[in-house]
């Protein structure tokens, strides 16, 4: 168990180092930090002095190590575009993205798993076929079109829900939350559906495929031959076995919600890190891009780690391996 966790941890660190290298190369070699920071009129001596001060003449590995050191302490430099510390910018916008991703993730998982189970158990039903057809349209529909469609329907035509922004937010220490005000909650609905829909269809299709596979397996056939009730077979045996691969893949899918938030945040003018990233790509604001990259990678690595541990908890085959009780 310990060895397993350590191995996973080591892999995670390697991934972070690779991403850190990309992020550093971005920061160091794409665009000229000196030119960007000093403007056109600075003298050659001033430039050299700044290069010296920024450590740009140090050997590559020293620079890389310094970069990682600063990154670990949250110092990603100053945004070229907004002239503010990057970390400050990201932290002020992170709660908006995390709250959106959290609600979308729950929505995608709960609805996706239930629909997936339903369509697997009622393969030829009318409702199942309509859900499957809708899901295919859902996959083909670009996220931004879904967002626009929802805005048109619920904000323009019906006027039920707001079409942009976060509504009123409440400050709790470092965190700003939209959960506590009616307008904050109402503002969350459309973006959360938009963001969650794609993952929902993916999870649904995954659950359906896995469950059909499990339902064909020998142990389900044997469970039927023992006369167990459909309920016990479907929701006891089949569902549990379905969830093993689903948790892994769905977990990773949920991680990518944070990255997909870029699109949703643009459509709904949601003040999160995704919208910040898009603007930084447009204006080639390298420090923000580099920091965002590291942040996303960190979130992915953490989710990966959690999913691995979860997998370990669900599947006894992994758990008992080293107790060596084979007969």
């Amino acid at each position: 168990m310990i060895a397993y966790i350590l191995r996973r941890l080591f892999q995670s660190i390697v991934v972070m180092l690779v991403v850190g290298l990309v992020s550093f190369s971005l920061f160091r070699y794409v665009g000229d930090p000196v030119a960007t920071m000093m403007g056109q009129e600075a003298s050659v001596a001033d430039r050299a002095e700044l290069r010296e001060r920024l450590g740009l003449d140090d050997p590559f590995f020293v620079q890389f190590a310094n970069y990682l050191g600063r990154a670990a302490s949250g110092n990603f430099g100053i945004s070229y575009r907004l002239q503010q510390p990057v970390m400050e910018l990201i932290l002020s916008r992170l709660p908006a993205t995390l709250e959106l991703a959290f609600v979308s993730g729950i929505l995608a998982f709960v609805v996706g798993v239930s629909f997936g189970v339903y369509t697997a158990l009622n393969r030829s039903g009318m409702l199942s076929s309509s859900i499957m057809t809708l899901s295919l349209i859902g996959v083909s529909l670009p996220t931004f079109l879904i967002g626009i469609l929802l805005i048109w329907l619920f904000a323009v035509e019906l006027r039920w829900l707001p079409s942009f922004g976060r509504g009123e937010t409440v400050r709790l220490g470092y965190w700003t939350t939209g959960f506590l005000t009616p307008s904050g909650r109402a503002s969350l609905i459309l973006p959360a559906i938009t963001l969650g829909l794609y993952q929902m269809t993916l999870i649904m299709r995954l659950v359906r495929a896995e469950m059909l596979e499990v339902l064909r397996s020998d142990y389900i056939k044997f469970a039927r031959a023992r006369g167990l009730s459909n309920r016990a077979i479907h929701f006891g045996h089949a569902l549990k076995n379905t969830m093993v691969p689903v948790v892994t893949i769905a977990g990773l899918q949920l991680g990518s919600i944070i990255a997909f938030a870029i699109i949703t945040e643009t459509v709904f003018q949601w003040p999160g890190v995704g919208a910040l990233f898009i603007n930084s790509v447009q204006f080639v604001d390298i420090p923000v891009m580099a920091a965002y990259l590291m942040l996303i990678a960190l979130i992915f690595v953490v989710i990966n780690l959690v999913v691995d541990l979860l997998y370990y908890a669900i599947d006894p085959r992994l758990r008992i391996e080293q107790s060596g009780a084979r007969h």
Partner: protein
Amino acid sequence: MNRFARIWDSDVAWSFRHSPVAMAAAFMALLIVLAAALAPLIAPYDPFNPATLNLMDGFTPPMEPNMISGNVYWLGTDNQGRDIFSTILYGARISIFVGFSAVVFAMVLGIGLGLTAGWRGGWVDSALMRIADIQLSFPSILIALLIFGIARGLIPPSMREDLAIWVLIVSIGLADWVQFARVVRGATLVEKNKEYIQAARVIGVRPVRMVLGHILPNVMGPVLVIATISLALAIIAEATLSFLGVGVPPTQPSLGTLIRIGQGFLFSGEWWILLFPSITLLALALSVNLLGDWLRDALNPKLR
């Protein structure tokens, strides 16, 4: 190729003739692609020629005469008086061009790297597959955005507009090669150990010929499926990037750009500027996706 022809003759063709969905999707996709390819011949106006533009014709609703000039446009005009029908044809042209080129780029890259990884094995294989794993755990739209951002940073500002489409193609393609590489690598590993390859090695057939002549034809089925599904994804990716405002330059609007423009008029009631490009994009993506879905089932009968 023999085997491919045989499959084509029997099951795939049969399945196509008996799938109304597949036929409808193929018809729709073909229609849009043809219309886009022939845009200069079909389009009633050249929306990018300032000489033929008349600002007076702006905001003309579909099928209604313009209040001032009396001109009638099938699908109306946008704020600058451009004919929506024509902009859609030209927009689809760019969307399809970018999507198609990106998939071809991804396919060539993926097949090449997959064959190399599978054939060479060892550290080349592990390095390539590690990269693939890491890349695969991030959404491809993020990868494409990132590559796009980096490329913009590397290209001098004066050339950014001109190179934007090519940068876009490379970004989407680089974000999409992994699927191809994985399938090709897997098939290469399987084929490599078969006796006929061992025999061919013994009699000294050159590796390149062996790989291209024997292994590649065996993976064309799955590659075709992935390519079709990737095409839908690439078209959506291009539309998304252009919608986000980081894709094609405003002088060459794709469907995504048109939707971005149209979204601005959502609240003011000029619905047609948004609706028609959206429908076109949806029809295009959906029909290609349905074709891919059908193709996967048709080439893989045991999945049904």
